[in-house]
C-alpha cells in the first residue's frame, strides 16, 4: 500500500506519522505488559511471542488454522456491522450462534441422506434461519415493545444455552451413541453435510468462502441498496428517519434479524466445518462458540463497522487466538494469559485510537474541510445525489454514538 504522492502540507505529514505510530504503539505497549507477565511466570517472552507468531502465521498450516478460527469471528462481526450501523446493540451473538448451530444440526439429523449439493446449502440456511429468529425476537421486542436490546440479547443468550443443553442431552442425541458421550454432544452428523475442504491435506473448508461472501454481500447491502441506506439513516437518527417517512420499526427488527442470521450462519459453519462434525458443548455457550459471539464484536469494531475491513481484523484476531494456544504449548503458560493479554490489547488500542483521532482533529482545526483526509476511495460511496449519512468524522467505530436512543 504505497501512500499517494503529494501530501498537502506538514499537518498531514504529522497526522500521518501519528496515525501510523498509534496502532504499533498500542500493540507494543500491550506486548510489553504481556512480556512482564510472561517473565513473572518464569517464561521467556521472546520464545513465547515467537511461538505465538509462528503458531498464527508462521506456516501454511498455521495460516489455515488462523483462517478457520477467523471464520466465526468474521460472520459474527458482519452481523455486528449490520446491527450497530442501525444503532442496535447486539450482544446476543453467542446465543444466536448456538441456536443457528442447533437448527443446522437438527436439519442434518432429520435429512441425513440428502445429497451434499442440497444438504450443505440447506444446513447453512437452517443455521441462518435459526440465528435470524433468535435475532428477530429482541429486534421486535425493541421495535414494538420498547424492550432494551442489551437486556433482551443478554437474557436470550442464557435461554439459548439451556435449550442447547436440553437438546444435546436428549432429543438430538441418538440413544445408541449417547452411551459414549461424557458431555452434551450430537453424534457425528451426516457426511453429506460436511463443508467441502478447499485445499487437500488441510482443514481449510468452504466456510472461508461463505464468510467472505457474507462480508461482501453485507457491504453491498449496507452501501448499495435502499434498504441499507434506510438502515444507516435509522442508525444515525431514528427521529429524522421517521420524519422522512422511513419504516423505523421494521428496519430495526430486520437489522437485528439479519445480524442474528449472520451469527446463526457462524454457528452452522462451526458445526459442519469442525474437525469433529458434531455439535459439542461443555454446557456453556463458550464451550460451543469459543466466545466468537463476543470476539466478533471486537473484530467488527476494529474493522470500523465495515464488513470488508472486518475480514482483515477477524484474521488478525483469529491469529492472536491460534497463536496463544501455540504459545502455551511452547512455554507452558496458562492460556488465561492470552485472554488477559487480549483484554489489555483491546483497551490500549481503543484508548490510543480515540486519542489519535482527537490529535488529528486538533491539527485539522484550522482548515474547514472534513475531519479526516479523504483520498479517493476505489469503491465510491452511494450516488452523490443522496446525502451520505455516515460522514467520515463521525466514524462508525464509535459505539458511543450508536448507543443513543
Amino acid at each position, binding site marked *: 500500500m504505497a501512500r499517494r504522492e503529494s501530501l498537502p502540507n506538514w499537518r498531514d505529514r504529522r497526522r500521518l506519522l501519528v496515525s501510523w505510530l498509534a496502532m504499533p504503539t498500542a500493540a507494543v505497549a500491550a506486548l510489553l505488559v504481556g512480556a512482564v*507477565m510472561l517473565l513473572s*511466570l518464569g517464561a521467556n517472552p521472546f520464545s513465547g511471542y515467537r511461538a505465538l507468531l509462528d503458531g498464527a502465521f508462521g506456516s501454511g498450516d498455521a495460516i489455515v488454522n488462523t483462517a478457520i478460527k477467523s471464520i466465526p469471528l468474521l460472520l459474527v462481526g458482519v452481523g455486528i456491522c449490520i446491527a450497530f450501523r442501525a444503532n442496535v*446493540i447486539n*450482544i446476543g451473538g453467542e446465543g444466536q450462534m448456538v441456536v443457528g448451530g442447533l437448527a443446522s444440526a437438527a436439519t442434518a439429523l432429520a435429512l441425513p441422506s440428502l445429497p451434499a449439493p442440497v444438504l450443505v446449502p440447506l444446513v447453512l440456511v437452517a443455521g441462518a434461519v435459526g440465528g435470524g429468529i433468535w435475532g428477530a425476537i429482541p429486534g421486535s*421486542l425493541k421495535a414494538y*415493545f*420498547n*424492550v*432494551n436490546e*442489551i*437486556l*433482551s440479547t*443478554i*437474557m*436470550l*443468550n*442464557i*435461554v439459548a*444455552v*439451556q*435449550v442447547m*443443553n*436440553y437438546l444435546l*442431552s*436428549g432429543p438430538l442425541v441418538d440413544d445408541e451413541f449417547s452411551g459414549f458421550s461424557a458431555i452434551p454432544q450430537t453424534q457425528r452428523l451426516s457426511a453429506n453435510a460436511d463443508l467441502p475442504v478447499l485445499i487437500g491435506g488441510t482443514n481449510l473448508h468452504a466456510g472461508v468462502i461463505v464468510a467472505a461472501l457474507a462480508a461482501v454481500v453485507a457491504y453491498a447491502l449496507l452501501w448499495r441498496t435502499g434498504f441499507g441506506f434506510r438502515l444507516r439513516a435509522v442508525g444515525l437518527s431514528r427521529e429524522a428517519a421517521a420524519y422522512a417517512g422511513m419504516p423505523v420499526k421494521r428496519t430495526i427488527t430486520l437489522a437485528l434479524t439479519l445480524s442474528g442470521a449472520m451469527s446463526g450462519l457462524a454457528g452452522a459453519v462451526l458445526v459442519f466445518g469442525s474437525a469433529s462434525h458434531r455439535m459439542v458443548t461443555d454446557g*456453556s455457550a463458550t464451550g460451543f462458540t469459543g466466545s466468537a459471539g*463476543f470476539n466478533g*464484536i*471486537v473484530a467488527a*469494531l476494529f474493522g470500523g463497522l465495515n464488513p470488508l475491513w472486518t475480514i482483515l481484523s477477524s484474521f488478525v484476531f483469529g491469529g492472536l487466538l491460534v497463536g496463544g494456544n501455540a504459545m502455551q504449548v511452547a512455554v507452558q503458560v*496458562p492460556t*488465561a*494469559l*492470552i*485472554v*488477559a*493479554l*487480549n*483484554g*489489555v*490489547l*483491546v*483497551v490500549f488500542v*481503543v*484508548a*490510543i*485510537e*480515540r*486519542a489519535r483521532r*482527537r490529535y488529528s482533529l486538533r491539527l485539522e482545526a484550522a482548515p474547514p474541510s472534513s475531519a479526516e483526509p479523504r483520498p479517493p476511495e476505489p469503491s465510491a460511496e452511494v450516488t452523490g445525489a443522496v446525502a451520505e449519512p455516515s460522514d467520515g468524522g463521525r466514524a462508525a*467505530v*464509535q*459505539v*458511543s*454514538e*450508536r*448507543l*443513543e*436512543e
Partner: protein
Amino acid sequence: MSEFFTLAVLTATVASGIRLATPFLLASLGETMGQRSGVLNLGVDGIMLLGAFGAYYTVLHTDSLWLGVAVGTGIGVVLGLITAVVSVTLKAEQGVSGIGIYLFGLGLSDLLFQKLVGTPVPIRSFPTVRIPILADIPTIGDMLFEANLMVYVAFLLVPLLAFVLNRTTYGTNVRAVGENPAAADSVGVSVARTRYSTVITGSALAGTAGAALAIQLGIFQQNLTQGQGFIAIALVYFGAWRPIGVMAGALLYGMVASTVLAWKTLGIIPRGASDLAAMAPAVLTVLALVVVARRVRQPASLARAFERGE
C-alpha cells in the same frame, strides 16, 4: 407441589433468592451510578472476577472476611480508575474498552488463581446475622432477617443510592451530566470529575459484588461469576436506571432461580425438563419488561464521551 408450600421450604427458597440476588444487586447499583452519569461500563464481569479473586486470596491468607471485602472493593476502585481514564479522559469507545476490561479480568483472575492458589481451598464464609426483634417475627423474620451481612449492606444501599441520586446536589450533577453534559459544563459542573466519581464508585461496588460472591460461596474458581456481571448490566436497563427498579429486577431474577431450584429438588419439575426450567429467570425478566412496557428513556448521553464545544 404441596410440599413446596411448607414453611421451611418457602422460607429457605425466599432466603436463597435473596442470597442469589445480592451480587447482582451490588453490581447493578454500581452500574446504575455510572450509567446515570452517561458512562456505560461493560467490564463489570471482569471487575467482579478480579474482586472475587482478591477477596478470596486475602481471606485465604489472613482469615479476615472484612479485609477480604475491602481488598475486593479496592481492586474495584483501581479498575474503576483505569476504566475512567480510558473512557472519560481518553474518551475511548465505552463498549469496546469495557469488553477489554472484561477479558483482562477474566484472564488475569484465572491466571493468578492457577499460579498463586492452584487447587481450590475453601475459605470461611460470612456468618449469618440475626437482626434482633425483627428476626423473631414469625416466617418473615427467618426469610428476611437472618442473612449474612453483605445481604443487608446490598439492600441498604438501595435507599441510600436513591437518596443520593434524587435528593442531593451531587445526584443532580450526576443526572445532569448524564442527560446534557454541555449544559452541566456551562453551569460549572465538572463533567470529567463527576464521571470519574461515578465510574469509580460503580466499579468499587462491582468489586464488592465479586467479594460478596466469593466469600458467600467460600471458594474461588475459574470464571466464578459465570457472566453475572453482564446480567447485572441487563438489570440496570430492567430497572430503568433507578435503584428501586434495579432491586426489583435483581430480586425477580434471584427468586425465580431459587424457586426453580427448589422445584427441581422437590421433584415438581421432572428431571427431563431441568435444563428448560433453568432458563426461567432470563425468560421471565424479559417478559416482565414486555408486560410493564413503560416508555423509559435512557440517560441521553449514555456511552457518549463529552467534548467541550462539541
